[in-house]
């Protein structure tokens, strides 16, 4: 934005005035906002000029407003025929060939040959045979599922469960499996272009974290029968987490939140046609979203701070009409625990005991940097546990949170005890976003410098290396997993700490990186980097390693995605592939 200037008025008033002026033509303003805006415009010529430009935009559309084309004459006849025939999806009646994507939606095929050469010790195979004939015998695994989230035909996100109880040996071209698919009834309506999904340790809930442009939310969905096991939404429940009091809404330091997005299996009806005071959050929705960043953020401080446990929520301390931050339960027991925020990083995770879920978010308006939020299962919302606007959730260390932040220009990590709010340094040296193994004896972290991201609200690795070391430090030379040029990573062990999966990327967000799987010596904690079980397989961010299955989303021919599963029982490894359609995300 070009900064309007008027003597005697603070800069944020001008910003607010412009936002209100932009919202005015569409009838969004409540009387108090209109009065404030008119008062400001009377004193500010620059803002008046811009407000006039907004108002004049409407006239540019006058010539086309309400002008619609004629539809094909037989459109209703054909629509009625489909309805009466009761044939879902029966279309293409206008002479168009079927679209190429159709067979990919939700289809499952066995196709182990694709990328089989990535597996250690397995020579590259001819990839022309994919499940045509049973030429190998699948082997059984312990029972388990692969969970993915994809967008259904009606646009809703759908959680899909795929039992993977057997896989083909990695050396086989193909074998015949007998899939027993299931899809949950839990769906989430969202227009987010991308999302992450994280399942609770008991596999009864999935948290969906929106990604992409615009305000984002964090939703909790029930995996089990939502009618029988709704998510507790008692607003009076107390959280054991000492929170800063800031709910996970667009303005951690300010008032607004928003009504929840709809979550249902069918389209919802719009709300009642009445102005709502909850709209007061919108004026702070500046053009500083990811699709139009321009507002300078508040400068993150080098001095970290966490809120004392005694701080109580401050949601009512504002002169503006203030929306409730209580979150209305959504259909199917789903609930929105954060709204109108920008999610930072990809390290959102449940605690090992499944009692809490942590993530990093910042206000969507760019007015502050990121803070760590923790949602205690059963609470109506997530609460900030840091207030320095410069903290990133790195992972869990038992019941404590690992928080990374830049202190004095150096990346540091602290252990934040959620019960007391106390912080202790995790390591004396540079440590950024550590992931700690299940027995807390080894960790993977960035050892080096970090640099500001382009929008100034986050950090990215700069010079240094991604290392595997004894936790929190050891005498041995660290094992180097990646070096300078890294843009993102994820490292996770299996439950026993015997296998370590490492995903690294040198590409822009949203582009695939590479995923490797290493055996770990249980005595030393060192990984067998020379003999990976999986060697640099192309993979999108967000893999899962659970119950003897490594699952990731990979690019496929034609720009689609596949879900790859590498599973093992003892020392035997097998693999299968699920074609699940565009945008499919593995639940991790």
């Amino acid at each position: 934005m070009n900064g309007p200037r008027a003597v005697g008025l603070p800069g944020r008033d001008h910003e607010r005035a412009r936002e209100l002026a932009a919202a005015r033509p569409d009838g969004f303003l409540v009387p108090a906002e209109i009065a404030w805006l008119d008062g400001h415009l009377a004193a500010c010529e620059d803002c008046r000029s811009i407000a006039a430009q907004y108002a004049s935009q409407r006239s540019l559309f006058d010539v086309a407003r309400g002008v619609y084309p004629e539809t094909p004459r037989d459109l209703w006849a054909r629509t009625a025929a489909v309805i009466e025939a009761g044939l879902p999806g029966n279309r293409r009646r206008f002479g168009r060939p079927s679209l190429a994507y159709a067979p990919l939606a939700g289809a499952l095929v066995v196709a182990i040959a694709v990328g089989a050469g990535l597996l250690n010790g397995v020579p590259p195979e001819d990839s022309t045979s994919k499940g045509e004939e049973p030429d190998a015998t699948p082997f059984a695994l312990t029972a388990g599922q692969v969970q993915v989230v994809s967008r259904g035909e009606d646009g809703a996100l759908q959680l899909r469960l795929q039992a993977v109880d057997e896989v083909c040996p990695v050396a086989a071209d193909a074998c015949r499996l007998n899939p027993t698919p299931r899809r949950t009834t839990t769906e989430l309506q969202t227009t987010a272009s991308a999302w992450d999904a994280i399942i609770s340790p008991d596999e009864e809930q999935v948290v969906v974290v929106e990604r992409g442009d615009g305000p984002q939310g964090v939703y909790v969905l029930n995996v089990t029968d939502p009618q029988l096991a709704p998510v507790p939404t008692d607003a009076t429940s107390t959280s054991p987490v000492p929170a800063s009091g800031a709910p996970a809404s667009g303005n951690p330091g300010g008032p607004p939140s928003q009504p929840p997005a709809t979550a249902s299996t069918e389209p919802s009806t719009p709300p009642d046609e009445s102005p709502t005071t909850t709209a007061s959050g919108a004026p702070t929705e500046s053009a500083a979203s990811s699709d139009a960043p321009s507002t300078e953020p508040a400068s993150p401080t080098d001095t970290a701070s966490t809120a004392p446990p005694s701080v109580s929520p401050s949601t009512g301390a504002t002169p503006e009409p203030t929306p409730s931050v209580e979150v209305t339960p959504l259909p199917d027991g789903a609930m929105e625990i954060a709204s109108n925020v920008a999610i930072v990083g990809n390290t959102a995770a449940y605690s090992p005991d499944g009692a809490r879920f942590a993530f990093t978010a910042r206000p969507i308006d760019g007015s502050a940097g990121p803070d760590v939020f923790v949602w205690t299962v059963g609470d109506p919302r997530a609460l900030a546990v840091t207030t320095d606007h410069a903290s990133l959730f790195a992972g869990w260390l038992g019941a404590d949170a690992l928080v990374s932040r830049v202190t004095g220009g150096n990346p540091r990590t602290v252990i934040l005890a959620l019960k007391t709010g106390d912080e202790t340094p995790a390591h004396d040296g540079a440590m950024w976003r550590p992931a700690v193994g299940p027995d807390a004896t080894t960790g993977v972290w960035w050892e080096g410098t970090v640099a500001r991201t382009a929008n100034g609200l986050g950090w990215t690795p700069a010079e240094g290396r991604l290392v595997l070391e004894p936790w929190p430090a050891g005498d041995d030379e660290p094992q180097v997993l990646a070096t300078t040029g890294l843009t993102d990573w994820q490292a996770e062990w299996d439950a026993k700490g015997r296998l370590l999966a490492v995903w690294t990327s040198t590409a822009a967000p949203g582009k695939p990186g590479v995923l490797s799987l290493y055996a770990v010596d249980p005595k030393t904690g060192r990984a067998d980097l020379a003999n990976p079980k999986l060697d640099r397989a192309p993979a999108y961010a967000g893999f899962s390693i659970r119950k003897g299955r490594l699952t990731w989303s990979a690019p496929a021919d034609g720009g689609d995605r596949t879900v790859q599963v590498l599973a093992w029982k003892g020392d035997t490894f097998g693999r299968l592939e699920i074609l699940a359609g565009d945008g499919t995300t593995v639940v991790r």
Partner: protein
Amino acid sequence: MVADPFQLEQQRHLPAGLSVSAGWDRDEAYRFVEELFGKHQHEIYAYLLRMLRDPELAADLTQDAFVKAYRAYDHLEKPENARAWLYQIAHRVALDNLRRNRIVRFVPLVGEARSTAPSAEHLVMDARLSGELQRALERIPVRQRTALLLAELHDMTGLELAAAMGVSHVAARALLTRARESLRQALAEETRGLDEHGAGA
């Protein structure tokens, strides 16, 4: 050949291809959707045409949208909100198609034709927007443009827009606010470009 697992699931639960819940009257739903079609077919088709820029595909998806409306009839709580509800269905149908085809395009209502096929702009608009506005609209992000055109050309209120796009009222307001600012800046850039072009000529 392995069948689509989710198709199998659907066949198991929906033997007739339709969901018939308690109190759901097929004839009533049919009449309702027929009436909806009569009232809103043109604007739904126009919206899908603007989104997809393909008359045949837009017609296909208009059909899909009304079929989905029929199936979801029992979920419409307030008939007076049917228009926004219908747009929401159409919006999802369009987004689903765009995502699956990895095509993100939005019709410029006038301007240079991009193919020899009948262009959407010829079919959509009798009255045309200025070329300057067209170019400015093409500069702004798709979601913002969608919100702006639904509000401006389809006369949607903020609440209707929120329902149609499947977002909260506050999110719709924020989106539209950003859209107006983006458009203002894009129009200013267009004006500057024209001035520079004129000065250079």
